[in-house]
């Protein structure tokens, strides 16, 4: 084969349409980049809420100044600190991609979805624990006639409303996280086939 023929053959092979790396790679990377701002915002909001709860409960119990309020404050502090510690642990190293590459962002996107699933599980546990503490506590107060009927009713209604909001939020977050994991896994599978 002469060199012109050889070059022609190479050109033909070279100019075959190159395959794509998968339809969603760039999309996932862009999503992961966009997530950064909202994650920071959510984290700041969580921490602000935690500080508000800690300070608020301390002020409230110092104003009321009785054993029950002190116990209530201790519970609020324990649960808030546990939730904040979990949040810090859960999201550590997930703020930015370790490598600024599509692969790095895809891993980060999947890891964040897994962190969301962990957060949802933790949220369920915390919600159930809070309901187990608050409902008997308020009911006991009501049975002891330390709380008026109307206030008890309002507290229960508020609790039911908050539970409904949290349950919906957890279900939505879980569904979204599972979709995100599926998107990354689908993209990996696309490249494997």
């Amino acid at each position, binding site marked *: 084969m002469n060199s012109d023929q*050889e070059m022609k053959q190479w050109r033909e092979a070279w100019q075959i349409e190159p395959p794509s790396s998968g339809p969603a*790679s*760039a999309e996932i990377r862009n999503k992961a980049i966009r997530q950064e701002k909202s994650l920071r915002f959510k984290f700041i909001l969580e921490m602000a809420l935690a500080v508000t709860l800690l300070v608020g409960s301390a002020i409230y119990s110092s104003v009321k100044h009785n054993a029950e309020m002190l116990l209530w404050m201790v519970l609020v502090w324990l649960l808030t600190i546990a939730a904040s510690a979990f949040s810090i642990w859960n999201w550590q190293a997930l703020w930015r991609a370790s490598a600024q590459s599509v692969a790095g962002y895809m891993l980060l996107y999947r890891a964040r979805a897994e962190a969301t699933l962990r957060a949802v599980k933790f949220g369920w546990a915390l919600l159930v624990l809070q309901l187990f503490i608050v409902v008997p506590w308020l009911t006991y107060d009501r049975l002891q006639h330390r709380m008026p009927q109307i206030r008890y009713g309002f507290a229960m209604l508020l609790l039911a409303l908050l539970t409904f909001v949290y349950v919906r939020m957890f279900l939505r977050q879980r569904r979204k996280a599972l979709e995100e994991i599926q998107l990354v896994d689908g993209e990996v599978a696309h490249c494997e086939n």
Partner: protein
Amino acid sequence: MSQTEQDKKIELAKRYEALWQEFGPSLQRLAFSYEFLPQAREDLLQEILLALWIALPRFRGESSLRTFVFRIAHNRALTHVWRRKRTGIHEDPESLQLADKRAGPEGTAIHNATQERLLQAIRELPLSLKQVMTLALEETSHAEIAEILGISENNVAVRLNRARNLLREKLGGRQ
């Protein structure tokens, strides 16, 4: 934003679109010759496209559009490779774990065996030879290659000859 500025932006977007239509496949092939991993290729392609978007308003037609595009693309690819070597970006174990899955022998979605062998052999060429060979495979003339890479035509001929011999050797070894 004034009407003139808006018109300019629309005009630029149109030029960019036309450029992508004309050179998109060549740029994808170029990314293939530099990067084995799919995500790394995607990154390189995005970097090249961004560089072209930034540079396009400065293009005044002193050289051909083809020369302009390939010069930017090759310069960007060189920067990309140097940066990767310096930072070891794809040596991140987590990235590698995913990359391996996606680009293993069965995973690499290259449907044509001849193209796969050729791409692999081109990737293994030294940088200076790889540049000349990929441009030659895009049917770029010696004069244009010289202009793109900033070397003499004689030098292009010498490098191309070396690249051919090396490529022949590598492909021979694979068959």
